[in-house]
């Protein structure tokens, strides 16, 4: 039982991080109907910026306080992501308003390669560390209930807490502010939103900024776990099954989808893996997504699209 809980917790923590990346996809898709293939590149770009500025800022300013350096690096990386969002809207999206979904998808594919290249040109292509002082030591929970307790990684707990906090802040922003209301309006119906005077361009910049911040936070957490390296872009591929599961248009769907996939991966690896020779973790999410595509293509919480014939 203790072992089961341990696996379950491990899965939930990993799932929370998938949710975070998936959230970036969902935000942009909802507000602009663009499937943003570049989300993974944005994660890498943001993480690279954060890692490098955390190195550079102490050198430039002669600081030796790691916390302040990290906070400054986070802010600088955040500003960079705002600029990126603004440029993407200005240079790419604005010219593609009302184009086919496939056209926009191809455009974001282009942005992906551009940002991967630019990121590595500006910030270098080695493996960098983001050290935000996460404790690496494991802790034991429920020691009184089970023999040996449940082993949990402290780092994972903190990462999940940060992710959860971000999700709460975002949903408050969406539900409780006038701008959030305008964002939801645009997500529901572009044309109607324009007709009541909501400027699409501004809304898109805001959404891409928010997605940029989400990318930064995911990049920061993944980066401090695995190191900032090119393979971070594949984290985005991990998020694809999550959005298929949760539905492309649903924020709660992204979160619950992430948790299901995180838990599913770990449990299947541990309990089914030994019978089939292991390695389930790698493909579990994709097979689950495939099953969903066959039987419930709109995902758990997505809107069912009914076309008039």
């Amino acid at each position: 039982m203790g072992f089961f809980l341990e696996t379950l917790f491990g899965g939930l923590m990993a799932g929370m991080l998938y949710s975070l990346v998936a959230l970036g996809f969902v935000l942009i898709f909802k507000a602009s109907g663009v499937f943003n293939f570049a989300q993974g590149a944005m994660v890498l770009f943001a993480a690279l910026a954060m890692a490098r500025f955390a190195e550079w800022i102490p050198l430039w300013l002669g600081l030796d306080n790691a916390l302040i350096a990290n906070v400054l690096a986070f802010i600088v990386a955040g500003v960079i992501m705002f600029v990126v969002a603004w440029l993407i809207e200005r240079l790419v999206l604005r010219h593609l308003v009302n184009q086919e979904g496939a056209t926009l998808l191809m455009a974001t594919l282009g942005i992906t390669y551009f940002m991967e290249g630019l990121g590595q040109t500006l910030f270098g292509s080695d493996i960098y560390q983001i050290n935000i002082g996460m404790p690496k030591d494991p802790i034991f929970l429920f020691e009184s209930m089970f023999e040996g307790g449940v082993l949990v990684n402290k780092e994972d707990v903190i990462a999940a807490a940060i992710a959860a906090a971000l999700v709460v802040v975002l949903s408050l922003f969406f539900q409780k502010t006038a701008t959030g209301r305008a964002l939801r309006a645009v997500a529901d119906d572009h044309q109607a939103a324009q007709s009541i005077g909501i400027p699409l361009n501004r809304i898109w910049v805001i959404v891409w900024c928010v997605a940029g911040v989400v990318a930064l936070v995911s990049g920061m957490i993944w980066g401090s776990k695995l190191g900032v390296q090119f393979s971070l872009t594949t984290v985005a591929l991990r998020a694809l099954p999550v959005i298929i599961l949760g539905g492309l248009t649903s924020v709660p769907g992204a979160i619950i989808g992430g948790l299901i996939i995180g838990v599913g991966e770990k449990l299947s690896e541990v309990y089914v893996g030994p019978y089939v020779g292991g390695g389930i973790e790698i493909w579990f999410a994709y097979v689950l997504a495939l099953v969903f595509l066959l039987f419930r293509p709109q995902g758990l919480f997505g809107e069912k699209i009914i076309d008039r014939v």
Partner: protein
Amino acid sequence: MSKHIGDVVLDVQNISLRFGGVKALTDISFNVREHEVRAIIGPNGAGKSSMLNCINGVYTPTEGTITFRGQTFDHMDSHQVAAMGIARTFQNLALFKGMSVLDNIMTGRNLRMKSNLFLQALRLGPAEREEIEHREKVERIIDFLEIQAFRKTPVGQLPYGLQKRVDLGRALALEPQVLLLDEPMAGMNVEEKQDMCRFILDVNEEFRTTVVLIEHDMGVVMDISDRVVVLDYGKKIGDGTPDEVRNNEEVIRAYLGTSH
């Protein structure tokens, strides 16, 4: 009923609209006077919605100009049109389905909200005061449209007739000078139609809003309009008071057909 009809507020001159080889509108001119109820009618496919979409900035006319309060323009963005004081409703409801009635109508206040994102996010004084102020205006609209009971209901769950009212409410929240209504009575039963007529006339009188409405159903339009434009196959075939239009030979032909 004595009501004062003012000067021309909206002047449409020689508008043509082509999609490739298809002529949706050919050389249409008409004007709208302040405080009147102006109808655009015509059979299916006559170009009524295209006309409205030109005024609203959804389509850019191939030729011609539109003058609003002395300002002439040949290209507009929808949200600029809204900022100038022209609001619209939609034929196929375009409400924000996931949101409550209240939130839908509140979005209509968006243009008048001044406080910036950071004030809103932190719920600081000015943003909070502003929200309350707009909320009061919106409550007045909700009372006016008699939808108090559905304030918190997601609009997707409301019956069709009520959704149409919410659509009207959202447009009214802009406090527009000109209100464009795209088939406000389409798909309604008799009772709902009567309600909608009453609301349109009340808006026209109480808020002194100029109304331009498109309608398929001639009967209702004739009762509530001051002047009527008739379109057929993208051309204007009649323009005048309901009585004049009713007796216009070409209009009768378009609607009833003639034996050749």
